[in-house]
């Protein structure tokens, strides 16, 4: 177990390092300095600016400095918003984005599981077709389209919910709904297929023969095993929710990390783009590790420390 974790963490660090290096050199391969675009500044000022942001040093030195700062979890200053550091921005934006992401994941998981289980129990019935139609629709409708539809119907036509900002639970309903439909649909489909498979297994028959109540059979025996495929996609679902927050935060004017990220892209604020990318990647890689651990806990047959079956 320990050896496995050690290996995984080493792999995590390597992946993260590759991302950092890739992002760093990509960002610095963009032609032109960020300062000589709009206003023509005095040459001395420009020199000072460049030395403040260390842009006058050779690339490899800049890279070394960036890595050194990163180890101390310092992501550097923002170029366009001169008084702020990337850390400030992330510190302000992350809690909001995290809240949005977590609520979305919870809503998607609960509704997806219910939909999938009900569809599997009523296999080929009307409820099954209905649930699966909802699921395919959910997969097909992009989150930003969902957001616009929700705004149009529930904020403009019928003014039930407010549209912008993130101040009260009522403000959170629409963004969470818009972001959760896609993941919900994926979870529902997966749950249905794996439930259908599990329900034909012998141990379910045994449980029925023993006279267990249907509720107990479904929740204690079937669902636990049917959950495995769902757990495997949680990592990539988290990724899609994370990238979804960019556009959802932009549409609903939520002051989260995604909004800073999109703004920094439009402003070409390279340190912010880099810092946010590195931060996002770290979260995602960490999520993938968590998913693997969860997988091992749910299914004791999978032994983490053994070599993967090929």
């Amino acid at each position, binding site marked *: 177990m320990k050896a496995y974790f050690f290996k995984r963490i080493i792999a995590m660090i*390597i992946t993260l390092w590759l991302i950092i290096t890739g992002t760093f050199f990509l960002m610095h391969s963009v032609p032109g300095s960020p300062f000589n675009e709009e206003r023509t500044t005095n040459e001395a000022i420009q020199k000072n600016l460049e030395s403040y942001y260390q842009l006058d040093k050779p690339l490899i030195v800049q890279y070394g400095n960036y890595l050194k700062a990163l180890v101390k979890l310092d992501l550097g200053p923002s170029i366009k918003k001169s008084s702020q550091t990337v850390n400030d921005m992330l510190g302000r934006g992350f809690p909001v984005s995290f809240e949005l992401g977590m609520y979305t994941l919870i809503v998607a998981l609960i509704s997806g599981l219910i939909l999938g289980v009900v569809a599997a129990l009523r296999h080929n019935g009307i409820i099954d077709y209905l649930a699966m139609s909802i699921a*395919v629709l959910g997969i*097909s409708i992009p989150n*930003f389209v969902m957001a*616009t539809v929700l705004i149009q119907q529930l904020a403009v036509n019928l003014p039930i919910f407010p549209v912008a900002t993130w101040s009260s639970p009522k403000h959170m309903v629409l963004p969470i709904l818009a972001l959760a439909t896609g993941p919900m649909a994926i979870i529902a489909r997966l749950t249905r*297929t794996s439930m259908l498979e599990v329900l034909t297994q012998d141990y379910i028959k045994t449980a029925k023969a023993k006279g267990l109540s249907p509720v107990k059979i479904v929740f204690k025996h079937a669902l636990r095993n049917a959950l495995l495929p769902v757990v495997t996609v949680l990592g990539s679902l988290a990724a899609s929710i994370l*990238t979804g927050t960019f556009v959802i935060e932009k549409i609903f004017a939520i002051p989260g990390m995604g909004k800073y990220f999109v703004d920094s892209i*439009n402003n070409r604020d390279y340190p912010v783009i880099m810092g946010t990318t590195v931060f996002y990647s770290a979260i995602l890689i960490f999520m993938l590790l968590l998913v693997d651990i969860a997988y091992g806990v749910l299914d004791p047959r999978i032994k983490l420390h053994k070599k993967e079956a090929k």
Partner: protein
Amino acid sequence: MELRKQEAQNISPDVPNEWFVPKVRNKEEAEAVVRPSLSYWQDSWHRLLKNKLAMAGLIFLILLALLAIFGPIFSTHSVETQKLAEQNLPPSSKYWFGTDDLGRDVFIRTCYGARISLFVGLMAALIDFIIGVVYGGLSGYKGGRTDNLMMRIIEILYGLPYLLVVILVMVVIGPGLTTIILALSITGWVGMARIVRGQVLQIKNYEFVLASKTFGTKTARIIRKNLLPNTMGPIIVQMTLTIPSAIFAEAFLSFIGLGIQAPHASWGVMANDGLSTILSGYWWRLFFPTMFISLTMFAFNVLGDGLQDALDPKLRR
């Protein structure tokens, strides 16, 4: 005997006695194949034809392709013509889908959006196919240390957040159609490579491959002639599911301002424009592009599901 026949006739006078003559078993006839034997592809096609939803998706996509190619010919308006006197007109017989804030015809712009979306989707799928098949085929077929190394590389790429990489590349190279396709292909082929590798690992141990090897067939030919045709099913399914995700990525990028740029029409760009005017009640500017994005992705998804069922009946549930 005589009596029984009589009885039979008595019971049902309509049934002639010849019907009760025992059939002589003919060995050759028994062996004969009555129905023409179907190849794997014909069989799959028949299964697909029976899937109504998948067929509806296929028909929609064919119509969409026709609209994208020929749609602009039938309209008297053009994509970029701006008629400032005819701003934000609702749908009418002159402008089927209405006009936008610069007086441009939304219908034509939707047709051009279809061109871009379909082009991006198909190109991304094609590039994924080429890289994924070569990489996955080689990795699976060679096995051993080569496979191990190639898989490590894939694992690292797989850990990268797809849209984040695409966004980064777009920032660096600059927006545009070619960059979108390029950015999508950088990490997009990984899924395909994994599927092909898994399939090849399984199939390469079958007897017919061994037979080929004992004849001294070269590796490239074995991969091309023995392995690939037998992995085509999952590959096609993966391609149909790559297309909607590429279309989504293009619309997403254009929506946040990193994709197709202003004078050109893309569904994402149009949706973004439409969203800013939603409070003014110009619903058609938002409705048509978003409806087309959703319908197209829906069609590809149901077609992909249908193909999966048709090509791999073992997995069918």
